């Protein structure tokens, strides 16, 4: 069984304690979101899980066959056009060039990047277009685990919905497991099976929520309803109070 297991994870930057006693498990086909205020250590936690930072204390066990990362910023190579940027991830995985280009073109179309975009450089793309490329680059690998670090936070509402719809489609088919970091409660409610609340200073998990309705059946009413319900919660109020100040 593929899974990601985090046990008793602590992390320090210098003398500052960033994370304390983090425990959770992400099973195959699940979407786990971690919600918390900015500066709470979410990115650090994700980097630890993805192996981009070395674990200091505790353990991270990742048995997923493959994984990919989509960052908060698109992080495209400025000197590569759209298709070449997407195919980078495939090439890094040893795919043949011709095959990689073919797959990249297919997925580009699926993410709404028409053919006249294929040869464009990142400087000629809008923020939303760049983020599509970044998603395509991650998902073209068909990873079994996807790490998402607030990838929607810089997008306008329409685009946010569009990208989320593509994800939800994949999630509902149980093709994809996701570890999803966000400070947006509604986003987490829309996408996740389980939501962990990460409180800051130092980052620790204070509460878990489960959402059982399958993602492609969650409409706005469901999301608003759940949000309203959860926003009554004492822990939520005190966790996000930092941001309201």
């Amino acid at each position, binding site marked *: 069984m593929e899974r990601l297991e985090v046990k008793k994870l602590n992390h320090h930057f210098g003398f500052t304690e960033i994370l304390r006693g983090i425990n959770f498990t992400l099973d195959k086909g699940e979407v786990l979101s971690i919600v918390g205020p900015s500066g709470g250590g979410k990115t650090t936690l994700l980097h630890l899980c993805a192996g*981009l930072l070395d674990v200091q204390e505790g353990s991270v066990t990742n048995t997923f066959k493959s994984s990919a*990362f989509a960052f908060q*910023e698109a*992080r495209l*190579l400025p*000197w590569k056009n759209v298709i070449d940027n997407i195919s*980078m991830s495939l090439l890094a*995985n040893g795919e043949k060039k011709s095959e990689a280009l073919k797959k990249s073109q297919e997925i580009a179309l699926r993410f709404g990047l028409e053919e006249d975009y294929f040869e464009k450089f990142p400087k000629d793309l809008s923020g939303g277009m760049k983020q599509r490329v970044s998603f395509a680059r991650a998902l073209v690998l068909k990873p079994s685990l996807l790490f998402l670090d607030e990838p929607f936070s810089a997008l306008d509402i329409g685009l946010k919905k569009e990208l989320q719809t593509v994800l939800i489609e994949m999630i509902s088919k149980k093709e994809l497991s996701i570890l999803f970091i966000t400070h947006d409660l509604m986003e987490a409610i829309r996408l996740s099976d389980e939501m962990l609340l990460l409180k800051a200073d130092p980052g620790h998990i204070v509460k878990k929520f489960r959402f059982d309705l399958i993602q492609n059946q969650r409409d706005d009413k469901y999301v608003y309803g759940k949000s309203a319900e959860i926003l009554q919660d004492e822990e939520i109020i005190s966790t996000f109070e930092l941001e309201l100040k």
Partner: protein
Amino acid sequence: MKFALKILKDFPSYLWSGWGAVASILLFIALWDVGNQVYGDLVLPSPLETFKTLVLMLHDDAVIAEIETTLYRASMGFGFSLILGSALGLLAGFFATASMMSRPIVTILVGMPPIAWIVLAMIWFGMGDETVIFTVIVASFPIIFVGALQGTRTLDGELKEMAESFNFPWHMRFFDVYFPHIFSYVFPAWVSGLGMAWKIVIMAELLATSNGIGASLAVARSQLDTPTALSIVVIMIASLMFIEYIILEPIKREVELWRD
């Protein structure tokens, strides 16, 4: 290879875009002719006379030999700066301490007037190739060094992390992530270094040697042979413009398409 083809393919349209430059050169020559009519042949020979002298000179084997001598010195000095400056600059860029330590040295190299270097080199190496080559190196090395240094210092940590997250193998990290960025700094530095080398080689020759174009310029001056002096100036400028606009600029355009 694909790149070379693309550069060739875009070349005609690049040349076409150069009409403005040609027009301004023609205007300059016209003003030059006016200057000739006002000040007379001794002070400023006419463009026509200058170009006639130029053609005669270019058919003279002795002159060609002088040009070759100068080319040899410039390319030795520039080649040395290119290789050493790029290599050391890249290396220093990777280490914070090294880049901090190199700063004052660069300031000294850049700040010291080339004429002072020529005097020192004449004392150290006497009158000859070494003095000229040394001066060229001292003048063009820091430009290239700084370009390479900045190229590595400004590598984007976020892109490095991205490459790591997708497990880029080392050759992809180098050729797809680091190299294009560094090159976009190093290449313009090479271009300015080359321009500097070409100016300094003439100056050093004029003061410190008995052959080369620079020395010919000194001879023309002592004999008040203004047409020859001007022809030499034309050779210097024309060769620099040829290298810069016909060779380097088209490459630069292709390489930097992705930039804003």
